[in-house]
């Protein structure tokens, strides 16, 4: 195999798959990338058994072939390589030469026959989707992460489902302490199973890198894979199997008390409050009372702080407690000048909506004191 390609083009492709190939699996070869050259095009292929990437790029091909090379090292070489074009040349079995002239790398490759095969998926019915909105949906959902030893499927993955009677799809992400729910309108007929699908959050964060705002995006579901297509590149994410809990009760604000508040101001209060937080003491007390919220935090190791926010609130007094960091996380993803907090009692969650942002609903669970 021998080909020459625009360095930037290949570098960009490799940078998109670093998340996939750096994910350690039982199979060592998944940290490799498979490159094949044929008919004046090369194909870059990565597969970590959960997420699969394939991209096709134009190149000047001298001879056909397939190689399996360490993705990270190739990426690093491409990053530092100075010339416009780069030459990859398989000089003998399993040895490849990168570069020409003054700069030359001699790299050992793996046997490409051991590379996990691409899942056989054909006849995917794609629908086109607004890439800017879809990118935000993915961004919002990937703010809620999970811990290494997590086992709950609904925390490991996000739920993508259809809202009945409306031309909308919804992505729900949660770690059982906070939740985001993002709605997106679409026109074409997009088929999602009734109970929704669960896409792993690892795949979602790969998608976040994959989607570009100004490029057309198509999505589809087939054979237990969620598939996203962008021009010459495609990403396939293996779905998780399991049930998703009933979150609809939690985001229902019908019986809750709304409080309008300026987002920037509230965010500043939360940031100041979190200064005194520590691993052991992370809860701030929120005292909702007539025309104001009094937020206090007490950390026996450092001290305490208190702030009063003036709001339009005329209901009963409610004393509850939240983790201020959760508020900071959520407020940062709301695109709206003013927000509405919904509360009910000391044990009820706090539902947050942006006044000018009807796509996103967020929920934070309280801390019992």
């Amino acid at each position, binding site marked *: 195999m021998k080909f020459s390609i625009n360095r930037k083009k290949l570098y960009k492709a490799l940078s998109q798959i670093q998340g996939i190939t750096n994910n350690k699996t039982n199979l060592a070869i998944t940290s490799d990338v498979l490159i094949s050259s044929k008919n004046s095009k090369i194909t870059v292929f990565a597969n970590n058994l959960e997420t699969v990437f394939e991209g096709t790029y134009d190149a000047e091909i001298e001879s056909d072939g397939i190689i399996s090379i360490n993705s990270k090292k190739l990426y690093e070489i491409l990053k530092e390589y100075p010339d416009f074009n780069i030459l990859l040349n398989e000089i003998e079995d399993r040895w490849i030469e990168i570069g020409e002239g003054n700069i030359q790398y001699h790299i050992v490759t793996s046997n490409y026959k051991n590379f996990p095969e691409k899942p056989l998926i054909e006849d995917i019915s794609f629908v086109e989707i607004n890439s800017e909105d879809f990118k935000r949906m993915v961004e919002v959902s990937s703010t809620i992460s999970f811990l290494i030893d997590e086992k709950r499927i*609904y925390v490991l993955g996000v739920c993508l489902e259809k809202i009945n009677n409306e031309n909308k799809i919804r992505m729900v992400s949660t770690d059982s302490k906070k*939740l985001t729910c993002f709605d997106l309108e679409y026109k074409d007929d997009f088929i999602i199973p009734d109970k929704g699908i669960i896409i792993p959050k690892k795949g979602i964060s790969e998608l976040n890198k994959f989607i570009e705002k100004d490029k057309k995006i198509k999505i589809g579901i087939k054979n237990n894979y969620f598939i996203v297509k962008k021009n010459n590149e495609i990403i396939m994410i293996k779905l998780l199997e399991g049930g998703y809990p009933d979150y609809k009760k939690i985001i229902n604000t019908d019986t809750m008390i709304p409080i309008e508040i300026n987002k920037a101001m509230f965010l500043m209060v939360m940031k100041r409050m979190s200064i005194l937080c520590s691993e052991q003491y992370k809860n701030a007390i929120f005292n909702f009372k007539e025309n104001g919220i009094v937020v206090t935090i007490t950390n026996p190791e450092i001290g305490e702080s208190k702030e009063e926010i003036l709001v339009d609130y005329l209901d009963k007094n409610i004393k509850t407690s939240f983790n201020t960091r959760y508020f900071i996380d959520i407020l940062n993803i709301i695109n709206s000048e003013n927000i509405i907090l919904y509360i009910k009692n000391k044990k009820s969650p706090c539902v947050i909506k942006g006044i000018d942002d009807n796509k996103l609903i967020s929920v934070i669970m309280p*801390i019992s004191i």
Partner: protein
Amino acid sequence: MQDATCGIKFFYENCNFPQPFFPQTLIYYECIKDKPQQGRSKVILHVDMDAFFTSIEQRDNPELKGKPIIVGGLSKRGVVSAASYEARKFGIYSAMPIFQALKKYPGLIVVPVNKNKYAGTSQKIMKILKQYTPLVEPVSIDEAFLDITGCERLLGSHKNIAIDIKKRIKKELFLTCSIGVAPVKFLAKIASDMNKPNCITIIEKHEAKKFVLTVDIKKVPGVGEKAIKQMKILNIKTLGDINKFSLKILYKKFGKLGEKLFKFAQCIDNSKIKPKGKRKSISSETTLANDTVEMEVVKKNFLYHAQILGEKLRNKNFFTTNISIKLKFNDFSQITRQKKLKLSICSSSAIYKESLNLIKNLKINKKIRLIGISVSGLSHKKKPVQIDMFEQTKEKIDKWEKIDKTIDCISKKFGSNIIKKATLK
């Protein structure tokens, strides 16, 4: 009754130093008066009760007085918890299996252990000691260190303080003790042991450095059997012999103990008297009647201990956030596993559940001899808990807590046997 002062011995009496003790004490006393803050010189007392358990039993039952008795479990597998001085004459010592003790002297009287009585007496002793100084460090149920540095003006010389303590314990509790007085902690302990029982041993500051050199290495706290073997090879008999070796060699041979011994040999002991703080943990454990591998037996024991611990916690209005289990095997090796909890709990069921979770991941291929649970991270207030969106663990635990509290009330009113877990019947 022997007068408490009779037992006073100054170490130079034993070591054949020429001076009589009285003038010496006076000089030292003067010294303190002149320069009370001089250097880091301290006065440490080590109070050690004489044959504590058996003395209490002999006190409470005059028939046992002057007879060889031991306190220990009544089962065949029991060991001697304590032996009276009369029994010690027959070579019976604590931690010896009871059947062996009986072999040594068949006429031995075995008295069952009454933990609560000993603990109560111990508390009374500590209460007396605390009247002399707040710096009382209880080492075990029957011994304590006292730091009386700077108390001389208030309470008299350290000799008088020691005599006074001894007198009061004798008068109020009819028990005798041995007291060691020294400028450093480890010497105080050695001193109290030197002329046991019923004796006060004083090592004066200016003699301490000389005295240290003569201390038998076996008597030094921290030197165990393994170390003694090594000492024999190195021909170390006294602390003075330690000085023949460099710190580097000692560290290589004995690790941290070597470093400690090196300092001890120069009469340096920087450990401070740590007064007992708040209660840190509660534990409950039993040695099984027969070694077992049966999971059911283990579970049943866990349930039993969880009940005891839960009741103790609720009685004292405590919550725990840390649970650990302990298993000892028939080869006397033991393992402990612990877990930090997200919730503060006090219900027996929750403790039981957590202990089962801890053992679930263990591979046990030896017979179990002892089973125990201990709870720590105690506080009177529940720690704030992040409520979960979909799981109601907290609610479940709260419900069990209510049930357990009701059971406690019923047990208090009608006796502890009236209501029980069915498996524990």
